[in-house]
């Protein structure tokens, strides 16, 4: 464009030329700013995701499993204590529970299943013939076998109302009340109980080791419940977990009471159907439900969890 032609252009046209350049720059800057805004948005979203719990509902699935195991366990124990230990009643109970679980969880947008897996396993419940009356643990003999030929056992509890005082070091094995566990290779472990002031002391010995203290609880003159399979002592005001354990490390084949004259109380023990309990008339052997296998399912939009649990409440860990 010649100088004369530049001069001939109106002022508005020349200003428009400059405007085009500015417009292009402005557009380029706008694109950059939009890109920065998008990146900022991505960064904010990332921070948001980073501070959120993005895991699936694994904890809920485990919680559901725990609730259902506890519910079926309660059903079994209620049938054993208050019913006649009928496997049919437990089967019917589980089948009735299934739709309730499904309906309750459906409100939370989750599909939950509880179904019986196979038949309910029968067992035997061993207690005193008069189960609620406290009596000395020597109905006929000081040392006697409660049950033998055990393959499975659970929920072994003692409720002690009276127990002899500390027999002194060296005399525990011969004088303190104890529960002896013997396996099929004749290895044994014995858990002894004696009173020391206001405390019940629990010691354990094996054939090769002297008694050593496992735990103790203040009984304050009240009855003490010893959960041998659950490794726990309790009174009506306190609970002590025996972390060193009250149950032996091996699977017992035979269980005996030792120095039975040194304690008074009640007991309850659920054993498998194939075991042989004592025929002593002081002990009653009633039909009971040992365990029930159930299928548990949890299905949400992100998680599908299916497991089969054998529910045997109070089985040693």
């Amino acid at each position, binding site marked *: 464009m010649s*100088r004369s032609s*530049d*001069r001939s252009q109106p002022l508005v046209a*020349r200003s428009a030329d*400059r405007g085009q*350049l*500015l417009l*292009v*720059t402005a557009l*380029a*800057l706008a694109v*950059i700013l939009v*890109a*920065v805004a*998008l*990146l*900022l948005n*991505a*960064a904010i979203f*990332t*921070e948001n*995701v*980073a501070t959120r719990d*993005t*895991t*699936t509902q*694994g904890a809920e*699935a*485990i919680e559901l*499993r725990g609730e259902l195991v506890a519910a079926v366990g309660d059903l079994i124990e209620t049938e054993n204590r208050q019913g006649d230990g009928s496997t049919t009643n437990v089967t019917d109970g589980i089948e009735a529970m299934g739709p309730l679980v499904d309906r309750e969880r459906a409100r939370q947008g989750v599909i939950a299943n509880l179904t019986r*897996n196979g038949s309910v396993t029968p067992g035997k419940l061993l207690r005193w013939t008069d189960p609620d009356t406290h009596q000395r643990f020597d109905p006929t003999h000081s040392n006697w076998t409660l049950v033998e030929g055990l393959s499975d056992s659970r929920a072994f509890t003692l409720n002690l109302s009276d127990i002899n005082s500390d027999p002194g070091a060296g005399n525990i094995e011969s004088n303190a009340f104890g529960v002896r566990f013997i396996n099929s290779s004749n290895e044994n472990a014995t858990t002894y109980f004696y009173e020391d002031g206001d405390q019940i002391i629990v010691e354990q010995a094996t054939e090769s080791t002297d008694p050593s203290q496992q735990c103790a609880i203040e009984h304050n003159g009240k009855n003490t419940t010893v959960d041998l399979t659950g490794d726990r002592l309790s009174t009506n005001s306190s609970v002590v977990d025996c972390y060193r354990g009250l149950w032996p490390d091996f699977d017992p084949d035979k269980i005996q009471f030792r120095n039975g004259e040194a304690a008074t109380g009640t007991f309850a023990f659920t054993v498998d159907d194939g075991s042989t309990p004592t025929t002593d008339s002081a002990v009653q052997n009633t039909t009971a439900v040992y365990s029930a*296998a159930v*299928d548990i399912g949890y299905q949400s*939009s*992100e*998680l*599908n*969890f*299916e*497991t*089969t*649990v*054998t529910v045997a409440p109070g089985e040693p860990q």
Partner: protein
Amino acid sequence: MTRLRRDRRAVSVTVGYVLMLAIAALLMGTLLTAGSGLIEGQSEQVVDDQLTVIGTQIASNIHEADRLAQVAHADANTSSATGTISLDVRLPQQVAGTGYLVEITGDTIILRSSNPDVNVSVSYPETAVPVSTTGQFTGGDVRIVYETPSAGSPVSAGRLEVEQ
């Protein structure tokens, strides 16, 4: 004074125009260079952050699956039945507009994007059930699958299969 203002001698429209163009071009160039540099730096940072968050999400879900697998394994050992888990992890297909690759090893999750070139490693504590994957996979949803091994097997005999 008024006369000097009105005097247009020695004033070149062309030189003025060229000067204006040069200054505008310089300004535009500076702004674009600074802007694109800013975008590049920020983009790399955002991709790095997003890959780190995605790696952490995968790690936490692997641990969730591991926890469930241990429960299912303990149940299977007593019931002799089979337990199964299928866990979906919802992940973005792109980070800041670019695709990425995920590779999971025994204790590390490696995430890579090519544009910008970012490489992120997220380590996670060892799981009781070993994690198994087939090479690397592209970004997007991931599924973790588990089936209990035969009854009596140790928990380490099972596998958490991570698949696309």
